[in-house]
């Protein structure tokens, strides 16, 4: 089905048929249809003049008012529901899961709910889609708005029938009077095509916003749609080519742009040789602003050729790339932090160490890693005078809007950002680089420009998951009891991704005003209850004079896979030292937390774990087999995992043969959706553990494609078994990023079990494995 409608506004949506609206979500995001609405400017009935929600003081008309019920949802004449949300589905299935929550609360069939996501002019700002928070935070916000709408609909039916609300029941969006089934009315008849014009309460803002807490939502005991594996609404068109991803979106008169950047820090373009591309037909303009250089062309192919052929002579940057990974480790340990956080402090660690009969210490190394989106950054911008419209797959449409309004020096309301899904991005699209490139190029040519980064642009300029270094110490007394845990995490902040100026902004002279956002502190052993504990996290400065390719951003459970790699490897090192079974040692020291222990016991049982210390009896065979365990808790979600590996002692190649995971994330909205996320986390975790490291030297980034930055392929995927622990009485805590945190450690522990060799440096490449095997049997460094 094609949507050729010239002009569809929110008002018209209300009047339209539900079927039409549903077709938007199936055959291209709602924004595609809404995009056309620009031709007939309409008043924005919901635009807020001024909202005072605590610290949240937007300018006039910048945000939809979350205290208007109409900001959240609309009932169509045929009873279809359109739910408006500032959250976006970045390929994890939340379009479906959120619709389940809404349908459940409204008592309408699932198919009747359509999600309109991430349009800065038409949805409430619920914060960025990050940190697995869409279901835990966005879910309750939508649930409460839906519950408030249901209460309002009951009130209208009560008036119509002269019956008290208590006598009304709802089924499939039809309200009936108990005992008088002939007295019934559908939601569509009650309010279809009209506004509610009802105020609800809202306090706080974005992710932390609390919506209509006074409205009582349904008990989990009555759930019929939540908790079932409803099929994802977006998948069928994704399998047929009918879905509209960002690069499929078309704006009339659109041109094609490509940025031109070196693979090292960006200095000044001393000379841009236009004649170098004179032979390419269809080039519209070489755009140069500050140190930004890009080409705009009539066709995509011309833009690609021109960007490749354009000769730019860059000046020597002030910012020197580090020579190698070791140099960055040295910098991490030797540089004064911008921030020091003590995440846990208990007892007297120093005293415990001085009285210890044994102490252990180990250092764990994590490299820069790429997000590795399948689709390199892509966005479309249409800048007309002091206004701009952006179509992008960014995780924070409102963040993109704010960055671009700063970049253009215009009011926020002059910039409208509409979400069009990109590929999975895992944190990468918290920094919306392509949108900024597109704005600069569109502004220069006065026409809409679509920017598509090439693979090398993406690999080199991806704001990477930071390199990280962790030092852990433990004290053990004469009875073999672990008396102290001393943990130090050294990490870089995210130089991008938290509203700091991004690549193109930096290139036109917008300077960062802070040092970036710290890389998290969880997963550092805080699930354990040792008598004396110290957990410190130091953020080492990483903001440079010029944009530099080793820039950083949040990457799936930011900072936590490296921290849990250190924690859960070291716990295993302690177990080996004490000749204890690794599961039993964990159970002995886990805080009095039934859920973590239960997840751990479940995974041990389901994986057929037999109690014994590691390493296994190491034989002289070429292929050695081992098993490992790891557990963590992040934001309320608990992954407990067992891995089985094979180590080829002649080639050094590791094969992860089987992974069993028990996962507890409170209330499960969609079990198959959770399983899908867990499977994906496991595969990406195996990939990052065995293969992934950004290579660079003083001349620039050397990982430029999928050959120089390999990722996991079909022939190396493990078998996976998942055991979900559903706790419907508890809040939902999310699954999109937590399961990955335990994967690096569980593989390291299984390799140790197989070989007696402890690997402390990611990734576990055959070369590293072979070197470690040669150095056997050094298991732990003793002080």
């Amino acid at each position: 089905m094609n949507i050729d409608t010239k002009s569809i506004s929110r008002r018209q949506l209300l009047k339209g048929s539900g079927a039409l609206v549903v077709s938007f979500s199936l055959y291209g995001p709602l924004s595609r249809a809404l995009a056309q609405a620009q031709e007939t400017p309409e008043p924005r009935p919901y635009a807020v003049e001024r909202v005072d929600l605590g610290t949240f003081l937007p300018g006039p008309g910048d945000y939809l008012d979350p205290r208007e019920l109409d900001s959240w949802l609309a009932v169509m004449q045929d009873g279809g529901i359109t739910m408006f949300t500032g959250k976006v589905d970045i390929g994890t299935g939340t379009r479906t899961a959120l619709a389940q929550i809404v349908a459940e609360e409204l008592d309408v069939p699932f198919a009747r709910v359509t999600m309109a996501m991430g349009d800065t002019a038409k949805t409430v700002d619920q914060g960025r889609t990050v940190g697995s928070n869409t279901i835990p935070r966005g879910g309750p916000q939508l649930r409460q708005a839906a519950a408030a709408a249901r209460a309002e609909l009951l009130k209208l039916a009560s008036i119509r029938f002269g019956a008290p609300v208590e006598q009304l029941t709802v089924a499939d969006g039809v309200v009936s009077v108990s005992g008088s089934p002939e007295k019934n009315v559908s939601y569509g008849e009650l309010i279809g095509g009209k506004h509610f014009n009802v105020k609800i309460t809202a306090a706080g803002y974005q992710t932390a916003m609390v919506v209509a807490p006074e409205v009582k939502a349904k008990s989990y005991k009555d759930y019929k749609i939540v908790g079932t594996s409803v099929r994802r609404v977006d998948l069928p068109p994704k399998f047929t080519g009918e879905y509209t991803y960002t690069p499929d979106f078309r704006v009339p008169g659109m041109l094609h742009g490509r940025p031109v950047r070196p693979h090292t820090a960006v200095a000044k373009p001393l000379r841009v040789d236009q004649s170098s591309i004179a032979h390419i037909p269809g080039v519209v303009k070489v755009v140069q602003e500050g140190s930004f250089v890009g080409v705009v062309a009539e066709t995509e192919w011309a833009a690609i050729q021109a960007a490749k052929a354009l000769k730019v002579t860059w000046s020597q940057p002030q910012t020197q790339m580090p020579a190698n990974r070791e140099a960055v480790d040295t910098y991490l340990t030797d540089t004064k932090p911008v921030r020091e956080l003590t995440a846990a402090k208990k007892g007297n660690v120093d005293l415990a160490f001085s009285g210890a009969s044994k102490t252990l210490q180990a250092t764990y190394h994590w490299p820069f890693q790429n997000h590795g989106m399948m689709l390199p950054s892509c966005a479309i911008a249409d800048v007309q005078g002091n206004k701009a419209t952006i179509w992008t797959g960014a995780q924070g449409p409102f963040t993109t809007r704010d960055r671009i309004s700063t970049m253009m020096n215009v009011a926020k309301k002059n910039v409208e950002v509409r979400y069009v899904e990109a590929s999975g991005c895992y944190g990468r699209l918290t920094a919306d680089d392509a949108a900024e490139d597109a704005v600069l190029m569109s502004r220069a040519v006065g026409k809409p420009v679509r920017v598509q980064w090439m693979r090398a642009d993406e690999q080199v300029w991806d704001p990477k998951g930071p390199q990280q270094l962790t030092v852990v110490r433990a004290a053990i007394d004469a009875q073999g009891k672990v008396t102290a845990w001393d943990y130090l995490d050294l990490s870089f902040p995210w130089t991008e991704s938290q509203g700091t100026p991004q690549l193109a902004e930096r290139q036109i002279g917008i300077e960062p005003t802070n040092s970036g956002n710290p890389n998290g502190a969880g997963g550092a052993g805080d699930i354990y209850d040792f008598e004396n504990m110290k957990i410190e996290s130091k953020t080492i400065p990483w903001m440079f004079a010029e944009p530099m390719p080793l820039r950083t951003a949040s990457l799936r459970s930011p900072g936590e896979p490296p921290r849990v790699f250190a924690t859960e490897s070291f716990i295993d090192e302690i177990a080996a030292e004490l000749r204890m079974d690794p599961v039993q040692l964990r159970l002995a020291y886990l805080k009095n937390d039934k859920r973590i222990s239960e997840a751990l016991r479940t995974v041990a049982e389901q994986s057929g774990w037999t109690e014994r210390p590691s390493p296994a009896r190491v034989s002289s065979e070429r292929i050695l087999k081992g098993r490992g365990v790891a557990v963590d808790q992040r934001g309320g979600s608990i992954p407990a995992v067992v891995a089985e590996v094979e180590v080829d002692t002649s080639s050094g190649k590791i094969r992860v043969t089987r992974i069993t995971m028990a996962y507890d994330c409170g209330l499960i909205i969609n079990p198959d959706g959770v399983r899908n996320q867990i499977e994906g986390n496991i595969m990406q975790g195996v990939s990052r553990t065995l293969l992934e490291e950004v290579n660079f030297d003083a001349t620039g980034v050397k990982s430029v494609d999928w050959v120089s930055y390999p990722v996991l392929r079909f022939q190396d995927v493990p078998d996976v078994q998942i055991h979900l622990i559903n706790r419907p009485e508890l809040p939902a805590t999310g699954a999109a990023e937590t399961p990955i945190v335990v994967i690096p450690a569980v593989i390291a522990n299984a390799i140790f079990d197989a070989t007696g060799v402890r690997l402390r440096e990611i990734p576990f490449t055959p070369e590293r494995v072979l070197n470690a095997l040669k150095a056997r049997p050094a298991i732990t460094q003793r002080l």
Partner: protein
Amino acid sequence: MARITLKVNGKSRMVEVDPETPLLYVLRNDLELHGPRFGCGLAQCGACSVIMNGNAIRSCVTPVSAAKNHEITTLEGLGTVAKPHALQAAFIEEQAAQCGYCMNGMIINAKVLLDKNPNPSEDDIKKALDPILCRCGTHLRVIRAIRRAAGSTRVKA
């Protein structure tokens, strides 16, 4: 610029383009077929796969001139949401995607595999799809979907 006639999904389509243009951009931008997708432009990820004369090719590195007079099938040529191909139906059944961006490569290469080997083992499938990258990690679902499709094809035959 040259006029080139392409046979895509059973129809003849004429385009006027630089003959060196990779087939991918012609399919996507001139013929508005969005099934084949840009992932790397280097024949390294498989997202751009299309079927030419019964074989899966990487349209991102195939000049459009080389596709002249050959039968090309894109993802759109297999089926639609309303009327999905057995493979597409199996992928839906197995919910075999997350973001879905790599799915063109998965389904196109699976189609070629099943055409040549209607009853592939799990290892056959892994080998055939090894060059196709998925970053969300839906590999196991993809394998299940292909096995399911192979089963349903056999039942029909």
